[in-house]
């Protein structure tokens, strides 16, 4: 690690096969997911450090391993099953599971943890709302190892939602740090990583580096394979690349697209590729001019150079998207989605809207290089169709605020749904007031389909609903769906066991490194 050459690792006493070194772009904002801590690094760390009761299984797709969104299995839990009505879910804990402090994990810990999440009124509490969990009282301790979750209504998404929310803290330890002012030990949680997950945090230098050691007491399937993982923060993408090339890190999570092209042909480095459900789109505010006119929206949809973006921004390594529903999501259907890059039709659509040209700002994330490049391509081509865009990069806080105010006419979004299901997609993106519905889009029929889907459990019936949804969206065009870039991860050749996460949060326990 200190010389820049990987040949003398073994002699210099540097990390051996037992240590895996990962570079990330930023340090996690906090260890406290209940109250704060919502950045990607943090969520990824939580996934590996918090004891989650259930998680996705693993399946193979093509020649890569991916998380199986259809198969959610107990990990720290013994079981997590609903009653017949699908309203009351019973969590059974394994016996003898301990936190790093030696305290046993009990139902009281689960209860305290969930009470804390509700008290926080922040992200977990928000997510629970989608499956009808809003009150601490709805979480009931049955006995030392059994907890019941009483949902207000049944939901097809419960497993998925709980897979991303059901973690448990060492309440005995935590209460020691609680005070009258700070009953939930926020101060302590902010600095101290909860223990008891697949990995424990051995050392964390704020802003800089985190060292994880495998939790040998993990009771479930897929125990961690690498004893030690060192995660270092390297903000500059080019530095990550250099270190990967030099063998000073094994996995670079923050390398830019153009470096990936080069890294494919670099000695000692391989690029793990997989199809991804991450979707890049432009959301058009249907409530503000000029995109309140559907023809203008269509004009933009015709003006976006899809192929050019795939080629220029992703080096061809992306899939064209033909529907707001991501490829690979059950129910995907591209019938009737007419939009391709066609300047003439774009102009025609604009004329149909009675406009010769329109002006708007195109908002994107300031530090997001990918979005910036897309924005440039879009701007350049849209201008040819008479749509003049002013590129507006916004910092996270301003973007957040303007999104809450819902006053962004046009914005680039990219992301993947944590739950691979159209109902979840509608819930988050297309129903009135949904959080990701930056388009302010509403459609009575979609609202109705959404209601209907809660209780529709039959697969084909659901697919029928989804087909209709896609037709409506193709006609209303609230979004211009640009493409679905593939996932690429450059790693050292010695690294094995990567499992492609459908939520974008790496599960480190599968990874290993040969000497």
């Amino acid at each position, binding site marked *: 690690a200190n010389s*820049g050459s990987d040949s003398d690792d073994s002699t210099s006493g540097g990390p051996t096969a037992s240590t895996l070194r990962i570079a990330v772009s930023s340090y996690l904002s906090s260890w406290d997911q209940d109250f704060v*801590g919502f950045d990607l690094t943090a969520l990824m760390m939580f996934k590996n450090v918090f004891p989650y009761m259930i998680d996705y299984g693993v399946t193979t797709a093509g020649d890569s391993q991916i998380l199986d969104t259809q198969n959610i299995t107990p990990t720290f839990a013994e079981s997590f099953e609903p009653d017949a009505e699908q309203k009351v879910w019973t969590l059974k804990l394994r016996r003898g599971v301990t936190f790093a402090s030696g305290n046993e994990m009990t139902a009281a810990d689960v209860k305290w943890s969930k009470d804390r999440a509700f008290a926080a009124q922040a992200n977990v509490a928000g997510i629970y709302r989608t499956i009808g969990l809003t009150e601490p009282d709805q979480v009931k301790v049955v006995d030392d190892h059994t907890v019941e979750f009483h949902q207000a209504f049944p939901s097809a998404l419960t497993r998925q939602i709980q897979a991303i929310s059901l973690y448990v803290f060492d309440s005995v330890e935590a209460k020691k740090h609680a005070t009258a002012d700070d009953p939930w030990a926020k*101060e302590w949680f902010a*600095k101290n990583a909860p223990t008891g997950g697949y990995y424990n945090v051995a050392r964390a230098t*704020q*802003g800089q580096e985190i060292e994880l050691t495998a939790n040998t007491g993990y009771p479930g399937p897929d125990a961690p394979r690498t004893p030690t993982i060192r995660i270092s923060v*390297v903000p500059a993408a080019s530095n990550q690349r250099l270190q990967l090339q030099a063998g*000073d890190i094994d996995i670079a999570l923050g390398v830019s697209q153009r470096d990936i092209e080069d890294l494919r042909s670099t000695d000692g480095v391989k690029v793990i590729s997989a199809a991804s459900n991450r979707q890049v789109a432009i959301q058009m505010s249907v409530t503000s001019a000029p995109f309140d006119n559907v023809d203008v929206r269509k004009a933009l949809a015709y003006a976006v150079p899809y192929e050019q973006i795939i080629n220029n921004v992703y080096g061809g390594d992306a899939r064209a998207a033909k529907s707001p529903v991501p490829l690979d999501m059950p129910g995907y259907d591209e019938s009737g989605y007419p939009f391709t890059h066609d300047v003439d039709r774009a102009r025609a659509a604009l004329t149909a809207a009675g406009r010769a040209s329109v002006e708007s700002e195109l908002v994107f994330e300031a530090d997001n290089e990918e979005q910036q490049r897309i924005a440039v391509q879009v701007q350049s081509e849209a201008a040819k169709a008479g749509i003049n865009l002013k590129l507006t990069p916004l*910092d996270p*806080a301003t973007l957040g605020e303007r999104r809450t105010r819902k006053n962004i006419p046009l914005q680039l979004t990219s992301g993947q749904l944590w739950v691979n299901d159209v109902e979840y997609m509608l819930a988050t993106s297309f129903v009135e007031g949904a959080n990701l519905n930056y388009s302010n889009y509403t459609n009575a029929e979609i609202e109705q389909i959404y209601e209907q889907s809660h209780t529709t459990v039959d697969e084909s019936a659901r697919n029928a609903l989804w087909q209709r949804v896609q037709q409506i969206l193709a006609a209303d065009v609230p979004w211009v769906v640009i493409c679905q870039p593939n996932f690429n991860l450059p790693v050292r050749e010695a690294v094995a066991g990567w499992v492609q996460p459908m939520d974008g949060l790496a599960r480190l326990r599968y990874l290993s490194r040969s000497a």
Partner: protein
Amino acid sequence: MRILRFVVRRLLQLIPVLLGVVVLTFLIVRVLPGDPVRSILGQNASEADAEAARARFGLDQPLWRQFLDYLGGLVTGDFGTSIQSGGSVGAEMALRIGPTLELVVIAVSIALVVATLLGVWSARRANSVGDHGVRLFALVGNSIPEFWLGLVLVLVGYSMLGWFPAPSGRVDPDTNLTPLTGAGLVDAALTGNGPALASAAAYLALPVLTLVVGVMAPLLRSVRASALEVLNSEAYTAAAAHGLPQRTLLYGYLLRSTLLRLPALAALVFGTAIGSTVLVEYVFSWQGFGQWALRGLLYRDYPVVQASVVVIALCYVLVFLIADVVHAILDPRVRI
């Protein structure tokens, strides 16, 4: 004793300045567009959740109330709670300021020493090829953007030559350095950790070099000009005309007079260097104060921004104070 009185008086004068900085920062962060709580809440948060979060951080209070609370905290050394991490800002800052100060102090010190040596050397050979060479070199260094220089140094020093450690972190984790102040060299020295000392020094090399090159030119120019002025002064001529030996001339008559104007400039340069660290820290993955403050600003982490500005301002005014004291010590004409 006089010096002490002078220092106390100057410290008192600092109070309005710091108060001004506090007020200004407090207002500026709140006037900035952007919502500090949205980014911690997650996508599913409702307006009520946001309100609750605001209340948690006291952001629902009227402005004057917030300010008084903040001021009260400051007086007791409490910088508040970071919105982003939920942790104490004071504690976070303590971890961050050490490394950055170490970087800047070392860089500025090196720059000062080198500028003094080179400047005097240059002035004594005024208008020789060597003199022009040194000046041009400093000018060229001064004209390269720091971040660009940093990238090149990483590429050459680490990637191509492999002489320096990877631009990640501040010390080799395998040396098991116990962080005390956060400043690698200091911690290593305090804990008597030899390997860590060497490692921390190796990690410091390139960022320090980047900063040194960036701040060198003005210092060099100033030293050279003052040295020339002294060399041309009647006082120096008189000493030389009385046949004093070179050594006495150099140490007794040239050096101290030459350095008179340096402290004020050094303080200024220190300020610039602190500013530059934002970029240098990014390029070298140094993760110090600059990156912390920048992140705080981007996410409108009010307490973090406030604390970082106040602390930088404090550093700055203290450095100026130190510069004044040093100047007063160097220059017997200064009345204090």
